[in-house]
């Protein structure tokens, strides 16, 4: 949802960046920033998702942060996975421990399927990824229920709490001619929604032809501007990791089978993704830093509780 309902996506930094490009020449100099010389922080990236059409198992990735001078690559990523931690999710009076699972633990056919579901081919992945997951699907995430996350990694302890919100569906999805003069084979997606009169926070992902689900550049929005209203809006295709910005950016190709993953999240998760996304965008001449606002005590990162559904459609006018 970019530049349509998401007024929060209307960040001033890109406007001023345009002014600079137009007006002034500049010189760049690569510098070595000060080495702050402190121990790496624990990083938690954990997800719990409720979906009527079948949820992904609860899982968490525990890693360590890098110093600025570190190279993030094949040689170092594997060593940054935190292994041997005790990770569990508590809800009500129950708690379930998440099992450590690395790619190397899986038989190859299973490994291929897992990587495929994440959008990778087995040939492209040489790193032994490790996660902590509810492998037996013992947790059935429910909406309006609180889930508490705990991780003990050596002397470090991280914990967080989230309530999975109720779901607000997309009423309908359709495609129309895109504004301006785009190529004929590309169209714009429209959605219709009835937002209930309470505070809601949304996040969306898009998928094209069974590739990975990708979050938009500004993938989250709160309903401050449209609380309790029903309306149509455009939904832009998220930019892929290696995709360049061009005349078809955000548009959908006729004939493609695409999917929208439409999620409801709580405010703490909204704050995390919002500050993360803006932090990336706000590196202009007039911007000050944005501290990413995680919701995990004792670690960087997020305990993301979402209520999601996937809408699959074929792109046609």
């Amino acid at each position: 949802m970019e530049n349509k309902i998401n007024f929060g996506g209307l960040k001033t930094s890109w406007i001023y960046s345009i002014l600079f490009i137009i007006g002034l020449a500049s010189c760049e100099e690569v510098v070595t920033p000060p080495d702050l010389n402190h121990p790496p922080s624990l990083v938690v990236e954990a997800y719990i998702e409720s979906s009527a059409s079948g949820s992904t198992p609860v899982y968490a990735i525990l890693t360590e942060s890098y110093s600025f001078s570190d190279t993030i690559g094949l040689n170092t990523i594997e060593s940054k996975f935190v292994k041997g931690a005790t990770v569990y999710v508590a809800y009500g009076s129950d708690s379930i421990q998440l099992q450590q699972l690395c790619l190397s633990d899986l038989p190859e056919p299973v490994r291929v399927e897992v990587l495929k579901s994440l959008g990778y081919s087995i040939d492209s992945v040489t790193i032994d990824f490790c996660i902590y997951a509810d492998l037996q699907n013992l947790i059935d995430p429910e909406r309006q229920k609180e889930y508490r996350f705990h991780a003990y990694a050596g002397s470090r302890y991280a914990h967080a709490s989230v309530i999975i919100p109720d779901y607000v569906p997309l009423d309908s999805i359709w495609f129309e001619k895109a504004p301006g003069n785009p190529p004929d084979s590309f169209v714009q997606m429209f959605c219709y929604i009835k937002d209930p009169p309470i505070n809601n926070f949304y996040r969306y992902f898009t998928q094209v032809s069974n590739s990975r689900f990708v979050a938009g550049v500004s993938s989250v929005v709160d309903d401050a501007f449209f609380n309790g209203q029903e309306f149509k809006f455009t939904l832009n295709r998220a930019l892929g990791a290696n995709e360049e910005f061009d005349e078809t950016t955000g548009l959908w190709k006729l004939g493609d089978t695409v999917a929208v993953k439409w999620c409801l999240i709580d405010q703490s998760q909204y704050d995390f993704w919002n500050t993360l996304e803006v932090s990336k965008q706000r590196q202009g001449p007039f911007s000050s830093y944005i501290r990413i606002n995680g919701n995990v005590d004792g670690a960087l990162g997020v305990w993301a509780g979402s209520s999601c559904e996937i809408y699959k459609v074929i792109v046609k006018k």
Partner: protein
Amino acid sequence: MKVALALWLGCMCFVTAFSQKKNITVSGYIKEKSTHETLIGVNIYIKENPSLGTVSNPYGFYSLSFPPGSYTLVYSYIGYESFELKQDFLVDQELPVTLSPGILMEEIVISDEEKKKDIESTQMGTIELKMDKVKKLPTLMGEVDMLKILQLLPGVSSATEGSSALYVRGGGPDQNLVLLDEAVVYNTGHLLGFFSVFNSDAIKNTTLIKGNMPAEYGSRISSVIDVQMKDGNMNHWTVEGGIGLIASRLTVQGPILKNKCSVIFSGRRTYALDLAQPFINKTKFKGTNYFFHDFNAKANYILGKKDRVFFSGYFGRDVFSFADNDRDFDIRLPYGNTTLTLRWNHIVSDKLFFNTSLISNNYSFKIAGGQDDFKFAVNSGVIDYVAKAQAEYYPNSKHTVRSGFRYTWHKLSPNVVTGTNGETDFNSGFDPKYGHENEIFLSDDWHVSSWWRVNLGMRLSNFIQVGPYTSQESGEVFGRNEIAKMYFEPEPRLIVNRKINSNSALKAGVSRAAQYVHLVSSSNSTLPNDVWVPSSAVVKPQIAWQYTLGYYTRFNAWDLDFSVETYFKDLANQLDYRDSYVDNFSDELENEFVAGKGKAYGIEFLLQKNVGNISGWIGYTLSRSERKFDEIENGRIFRTSYDRPHDLVVVGQYQLNKKWQLSANFVYATGRAYTPIRSVFIIQNEPQIEYGLRNSERLKSYHRLDFSAVYSNESKNSEKYYSTWAFSVYNVYNRKNPFFSYTDFESDYLKGQIVAKSVNVSIFTIIPAVTWNFYWRIK
């Protein structure tokens, strides 16, 4: 407002009841001979007894009382030939005086009033700039910018290079009271602050007061920048202007009725992208443009010997528009100030001068645009309506009593966001905020003896927030004009001058100031979309105590003036955004602030040479500016981004001959404080930045050298027409001073790795410029 007015009238009655009548009084206006522009800050004194003296006020009026006798009365003003009148002064006398400009050469930017005031007066941290002197200094892209010239003075800095925003003695940019003919100017910068809104051709005088401001000034806690527009030539019609790289200017002024009524119109506009329109129109960006303009106008009418009326206005705008026709997307960004001032000067008696003003000012900012069915707009701004009255009473040669009141009605609009998407309307739901600000003051500049001088003043200020307003804390709803919150602040002012000898003085001052409207910026510098908010139940007034101590001396043999001032500021209720704040336009801003404390202290050295072929100044400041907020980093004390421990400026001007003047500036400052990167972590397979402690590291130090050479064919025979060419080079040795820093993550897919890079970006490399200026007297 009624209470303030009653208090003020009571003060006036009290003061006038104690005036003495043994002396005779000489009074009148002082004007420039050719244009009849009033002259501000002219020194008037008795040659036989220089301790008997005064200074013309901001309207050019003076009043001096002394025992009857035979004296030589001297009128002295830098850049002008002194005027002496020797006669018997036996009865009260109205004595208007005109002064003629001096010969070319021998004047520089800092006026000679400084020299006199530093020793004799009770003013501290006060600088006056004359625009005709300022114009010859080297400037960025050849644009004369009065605010950037002020940044060359000790104690004054900018947050980023090229910015016109001022940070005075460790105070924030919203803490400066910027006045244009008594109207507050809320946004002082064009093009994101790179150029100030002040057109140098329309300005007569600029006064900067860095601290311990006199009681007649208030509403801000850091400094006062008082800009006076020209009144308009009373004798001749003239046209002057200039063509530069960035903008061109044109000023027309002249008498409607000679020596009775005059007008001045002055305009300035950029055109860089206008010239590029034929090319832009052939691309998909047709409709993309940027320009800014300023328009100043003033009329004044002398009703009689005792009355004069002025009406002045300023209208300035930046307009940016961007269009991508292939995507049917457009955006427009107009913003700017409008001020109007109506003033009436009335001479009640030869000892009592009265000024009444009605003022309105309006700052508005807007972003609007859309794509296809979707339209949006963001509006913010400030509207003030002001009524003020001020009296200056000169009961005798030992006292100058000032009193007055000021009432301001404020309407402050936060970011109001509206939009439509087909048939659906969106609205952020934010209402403007309203407040009444009342101020009353009384001060006396008391010449106690030939060795002691005291300026003692009291200012009482009051702010009333009224509805419509809904308290987010309590949920209470206040209706229209219903009082939601009231603040009352006393603001005492005291400065003591102890003369050591005829060439040296020691001064000390203490003051308390309160501020009721605030600007909190989420960027490193002020931006036009920054929002002004009033004090309320949530936002308390900012308070500052300032203590200063200064030593001032003059070395007559070398025509050098030297001063050292040390200051300490204790700041309360300072505002900042909470950590991790993101402006999504959906938040009630006052709920996103955190309040804390601040301290700023330092020592400023200034050595000036104001006369001679070689003139200039050297200024050095050693200072510290820090803040502390309980909600930011658990109350850790951090330096502000505009903290500059070391700040050195050297300005030199050399009058080579009657036609050529050479100037150079050298600036050195400690690098700007910034928040470093603590670590990098991975989320969703992408690197993210974890920042370290706020402002705990510094960019590399800043320094640059500028040159200018001004050629003028002005001479005694060129009263009717002359022109000048100003050649300047900014950043002569191309120092790559970092303007900002960003982090880039470079992906190497072959090696399968990502490397983080920190990049400093410099914008203002060596920049030559040329400006042509002309002056033409029509008749």
